[in-house]
């Protein structure tokens, strides 16, 4: 029953490939509901800011709180559905916290002069963050990030009114990404 070193090496490669693929699918599965939720938040946030620009900051503040609480609720719901834990759920929440901290920190240091700068920056950062995650976690994240970042730049340079573009494209892309991850 003993193996040659070539056979052992081939078996280890199979082990690594199966582990990598399984880990990737699991990550997609865990991040899917968070992406859908944040997609909805983006639609409400950008759409609401477009309709009521004076209240944009307050609207986003409320939505960020809702998103943070929603992330915790989704983690618990995941647990309730019979999964032992949701180890990536809190990381997804933490990722959003880091992105938001970076965005608002940058706004404090370098205040945006135009509405479309205010709009495009978080979307661009989010797209880049997706691409970076995808380097470790799978091609679907890279593709989603590229789509979000590219559409952000298209919107910045060519589309008016910008808020509704980001509501539809940013939020829509996130929801579609979440649904796409569900099928993985």
């Amino acid at each position, binding site marked *: *029953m003993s*193996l040659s*070193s070539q056979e052992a090496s081939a078996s280890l490669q*199979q082990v690594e490939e199966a582990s990598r693929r399984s880990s990737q699918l699991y990550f997609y599965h865990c991040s899917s509901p968070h992406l859908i939720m944040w997609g909805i938040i983006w639609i409400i946030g950008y759409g609401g800011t477009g309709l009521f620009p004076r209240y944009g900051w307050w609207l986003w503040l409320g939505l960020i709180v809702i998103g943070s609480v929603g992330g915790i609720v989704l983690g618990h719901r995941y647990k309730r559905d019979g999964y032992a834990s949701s180890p990536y759920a809190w990381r997804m929440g933490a990722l959003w916290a880091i992105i938001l901290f970076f965005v608002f920190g940058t706004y404090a240091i370098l205040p945006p002069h135009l509405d479309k700068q205010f709009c495009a920056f978080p979307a661009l950062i989010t797209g880049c963050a997706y691409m970076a995650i995808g380097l470790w976690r799978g091609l679907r994240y890279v593709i989603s990030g590229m789509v979000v970042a590219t559409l952000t730049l298209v919107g910045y340079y060519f589309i008016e009114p910008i808020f509704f573009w980001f509501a539809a494209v940013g939020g829509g892309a996130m929801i579609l990404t979440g649904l796409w991850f569900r099928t993985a």
Partner: protein
Amino acid sequence: MEQPDPTIHQPVRLKIMAALKPLPAGEALEFVRLKAVVGATEGNLGAHITTLEQAGYVGVEKDFVGKRPRTRVSMTPQGRRAFDAYVGYLQDIIGAAG
């Protein structure tokens, strides 16, 4: 060199164990996702899961999500130890040859 664990020493069962290993302890993988990772037919995969379950290496839970039946497979602590030992066995072979 000691003999490998005969339960894991089979390509499909090795892949099943490898797919379950990276999940957090107690976490399960749905049958359909496991099938996609392992690349086996449903019947073949089911038979190998049963073998692993009988050895105490995996746990199988069946329930319903709405009206849709769902089967989930997780690795037991005993299975985790057996898999680690098997991977160690493979690494020893490569180490001895190199």
